[in-house]
Structures are given as C-alpha cells and as structure tokens.
C-alpha cells in the first residue's frame, strides 16, 4: 500500500515540458494609440502581457512541484525578446521567438497557425496560454491553437492539478467553478487569478542573459502567410459618457429622479 502510494506520488506529477505562450503588449498603464490601418501602435512602452505573466508563474509553480522544463514561445517583432527575457528572469528555461516582417498585423488565425507550428516542434506535455491578450482581446488564439495542435483544451482555469498524465482544472464560471480534466498533452488557458506573478530575482535577471532565445522566421516553420481571415473594416469611437444630471433637493427631488429613471427606461 505504502509502496503504491509512494509510486503514484512519484509519477504523480511528472511533467516533461511546458510551453507558455507569451506576448509583448503596450503597457496597460499607458493610453492606446492606433496606427492609420487601425492596428495598435507598438512603438511605445511595451511589457510582457500581465495575463501571460500569470501563465508563466503557474508554469513555474508546476515545474517546482513536478519538474520539467518551461519554454516560452512568442510571436512578435524583435523587441518582443524583452518579454521573453522577462519570463526567463522569473525562472523559465528558454525561449523561442517567431519574428517575420510578413507577420505584422497578423490576425488570430495566422497567429495560432504560427504558434502551433513552433509549439509542435517542441512536443510539450502542456501548453499554457492566457485567456485573452491584453491588447487584441479576441480570446480566439487558445482554442484555435488547441485545435491545430490536436490537444484537448481546458479553458479559463483558475487552478491546475497534475495527477500523472491527467490534468484537472478548476474552470471559472460566472457563479462558481467546474472541475474539468483531460489527459496530456493538453492546452490550458488560465485566468489572471491563477497565480500571483513573482518578482524576477536579481540573480534571475542576470542568469537570463545566458539563457537561449531561439529566433526563427516563417520559412523555418514552412508556413505561407495566405489571406487574412479577418481584417478590421472600420472603427468608431465608443460613445463618451454624458455628464450626469444634478438635482437640487427643493422638496421635489425624489419625483424628479423617478422621472429621469422612467425616461431612461430603467423604471
């Protein structure tokens, strides 16, 4: 009995390789600027997507508990290396950057195809993605990626448990969570609540200098760009919020407020 338990706790959680997809995005603390073609201006302060930072943290915690290697995969222009480097400083082992001029303005499908090709070459046991990127916010890349990789997807995970080759997640819902499981290899999209990202230690920052970031282009993956599946046709400003009405209480305030609410069809 004891032996079996020991055995299962040993195999209990063996992960060989975790890939985390990471993206460099404009700093959430700065204002959004669009280029003439409606794509985001990326020439300003950029950071590792805060959602991906949580993904990296979760992967590192899984690695600490179960062993294995954490590989960061990113698609982006060359400066996106900094986002990978940030994850390496936190403790990830190495990175892959797919960078190609043809990828500028890539839509979700092209992004997923590119990432899938790069991830396939890594043959991981687990892929961790943020639920959606901070900037594009389509939320489409993780499911597309799972499909292209032929992996089951466990989405919106706020907790991950590893039991041998079975991965169980707590899937966040509006009023609670579901427990969903699948066998490895598996793709998981995680919520920001899954893990508080650690500070990159100063030793980690210095050590990251000598960790590998492999840079590849579309040609290396054997992918043709093709026609985009989506383009941005137009864009309009969200309606600015109108100033509220201030009602002085001259004794009829309650009636006035009710009228306003009736007009707004709230009552």
């Amino acid at each position, binding site marked *: 009995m004891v032996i079996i338990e020991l055995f299962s706790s040993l195999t209990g959680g063996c992960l060989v390789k975790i890939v985390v997809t990471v993206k460099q995005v404009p700093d959430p603390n700065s204002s959004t600027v669009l280029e003439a073609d409606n794509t985001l201006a990326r020439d300003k302060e950029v950071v590792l997507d805060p959602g991906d930072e949580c993904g990296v943290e979760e992967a590192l915690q899984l690695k600490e508990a179960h062993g294995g290697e954490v590989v960061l995969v990113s698609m982006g222009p060359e400066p996106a290396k*900094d986002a990978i*480097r*940030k994850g390496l*400083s936190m403790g990830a082992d190495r990175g892959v950057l797919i960078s190609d001029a043809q990828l500028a303005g890539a839509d979700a499908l092209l992004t997923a195809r590119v990432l899938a090709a790069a991830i396939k070459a890594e043959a991981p046991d687990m892929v961790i993605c943020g639920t959606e990127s901070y900037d594009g916010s389509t939320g489409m890349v993780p499911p597309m990626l799972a499909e292209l990789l032929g992996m089951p997807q466990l989405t919106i995970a706020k907790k991950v448990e590893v039991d041998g080759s079975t991965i169980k997640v707590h899937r966040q819902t509006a009023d609670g969570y579901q427990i969903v499981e699948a066998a490895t290899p598996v793709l998981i999209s995680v919520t920001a609540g899954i893990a508080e990202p650690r*500070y*990159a*230690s*100063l*030793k*980690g*920052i*210095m050590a*990251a*200098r000598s960790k590998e970031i492999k840079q590849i282009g579309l040609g290396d993956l054997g992918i043709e760009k093709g026609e985009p599946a989506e383009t941005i046709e137009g864009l309009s400003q969200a309606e600015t919020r109108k100033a509220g009405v201030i009602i002085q209480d001259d004794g009829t305030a309650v009636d006035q407020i009710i009228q306003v609410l009736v007009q707004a069809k709230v009552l």
Partner: protein
Amino acid sequence: MDFQLTSEQQAIRDVCRDFAREVVAPAAEELDRNHKFGYDIVRQMGELGLFGLPFSEEYGGAGGDFLSLCLAIEEISRADTGVGITLEAAVCLGAAPIHDFGSKEQKERWLPDLLAGRKLWSFGLTEPEAGSDAGATKTRAELRDGKWVVNGAKQFITNCGTDISAGVTVTAVTAKANGGRPEISAIMVPTGTPGYHILESYRKLGWHSSDTHPLSFEDCAVPDEYLLGERGGGFRQFLHTLLGGRIAIAALSVGLAQACLDASLSYAKERRSFGVPISKHQAVQFKLADMAMETEIARTMVYRAAVTYMKTDGETTDEARMLAAMCKLYASETSKRAADQAVQIHGGYGFMEDYPVARYWRDVKINEIGEGTSEVQRMLIARLLGC
C-alpha cells in the same frame, strides 16, 4: 557616448521599482511612526537578491554591476530612505570591504549570509571625536597573545543593533604615530564578542526605519585573523569604501528627490485654489520644473560617477573621486531643495504627517551629513582642483 542602460540594468531597475511601490512604500509610514526596523521588508529584499546585487556569484551574489546597485538604491529610497540606507550601508559599508579586502576564509565565513540579506554587517568609522576628520581615530587595538584587543567608542553606526546584525568592521589605531600619521587598521568584531557593547539606539530626526547606535569596546578581544585586509591598510581601505558609498548614497538622494517630485506633482494636479488646480499657477509650475530638472541632473551625475567608478576596478582615480564628491554633494542638496519645495507645494498639509512629504523633509537633512558632509565634499573638490 551612449546614455542607455543595458537591458539587465533596466530589468533590475524595473523590478526594484515594482518591489518598492508594492512592498516598501505601503509600510513606510508605519515604520517611520513607530521607529521600527522593517525585518520583513529586509527579508524580502534578501530573497530578491538586493544585498548580493553587485557581488560575484562565487559567494552568492547576483553578479550585477555597481550602477545596477545605484539603480536599486534609488528605487528603494523613492519609497523609504530608511530602508534605502539599510541596503546602502549593508552593501557598500558592510559587505563590500569584506568582499574587496577580506581573506578567503573571511569571505567564506561571512559573505553568504550577508549577500543573502540573512545577516547585516556594519562599518564603524565615525567616533565621538572623529567624524569628518576620520584620521583622528582614537579607538585602539593592540595585539596581545594572538588576539586584537579593541578599546574605544564608535558613534552613529548603521545596521549594528538589529536582530540580524552579525558584526562590525571598526577602524582602530594599531601603532602610534611615528612622525607621520598613526597606523590605522580595520578589525572585524562579531556581535556577541565579550566587551563589544551596542548601546541604546539614537532618537533620530529621520530615517526612523533604519538602525543606528553608538558602540563601545572594552578590552574586546578577537582572534588576530579578524584583521581585515593588511595591517596599516585601514586608511586606504576606508577611502576606497567611502568612494563607492558616496555614489550610492547620492543615488539614495536622487530617489528621495524623485519621491518629492512624484508627490508634489500629483498633489498639485488635485489641489485647487482660485478656481484651478494649483499646478496651473506658474509659481507652482516653476517649482515643479526646477525639481524635475535638478533631479534629472543629479541622476545623470550619479550614473556617470557610477560608470567611472566601475571602470577603475578598485583603484581610486582622481576622476572617480571628483565625480563621486560632485554627485554626492549635488544630489544631496537637490534632494534637500526638493523636499523643501514639496512641503511648500503641499501648503499646511505639508506640515502634517498625513502626507509623505513631511517624512521626506525630516529624512532629507542627513543626506548632506552622512558619508561626508557637504563641506567635506567641497573640500575634496577644491583639493582635486589643485587648491
């Protein structure tokens, strides 16, 4: 000429900035009010690797450079200069002399704990009757039966009296003047050595979250291998130690000046008078503009001095000495003006402890005194000019 930080330096600055904002700043007011040493913060700083930042990996350091240390001290001090001086003194005055002058055994014995922030080491140079004139040291150490026996007193010593203080390096006269200067050597005294007394902590105007005590030594005996560096090398060693310390403490001043600007700018945009935010009054704008400009000049001076110091590789060149004195002097006086104007911009609220600028104003004065007064810096600059 390229004024860009390397990507590692930027990454180190950014992580220190986040850490300072999220961990150090929220605790600053309480530590200040209760005159408490931030053990929990120091522990976390240790885990982050701050105490080992500029040292080689061999003894558990992070292998960063001296400029990175200055960036870290600047960011931490922007949140709390009391914590900033704890770090500065632990690294530049405590660990660095052991790292730079210690024997292999001394380094192996002490550095791993110090560089991890588990323990703090302090540096005792100043005495009741020897401050600016550090060569006037009265503390004596005599070699008796293979032991250094120390007698004397030290004053205003940072980091010596905490629960994690492991010891102090004291400068002491080890042979009488033979015509010229007396022979001064540095001796390491571990906490708990009989005859080593850590007296009650000072009641300070500022830096309440830092630890400062007077020390006294009464027939305090340590083994002769506790001599740090060569016998008679004390004077040269502390000049070297103080050179790095000066640049690092200038970085602390820059952090505080920046904190004054941060607080003043946000207050000036919120506080209204005569129908507009006070940031719309030219008199207030000019104060903010001056603060921003002087802080940036001071920062540039610190970085330049740090890079020059890094290049000297242990040698104290005249250029490094000049730049260190200039940046220490300029940054401390800049922070003083900034704190003064920050209180002014806050009006009556600036006099209240509800806003951090009152603390900045109390904390800032020491910048013009510690690690060489402004007068001493001017003397050094004038001497290097050939006066």
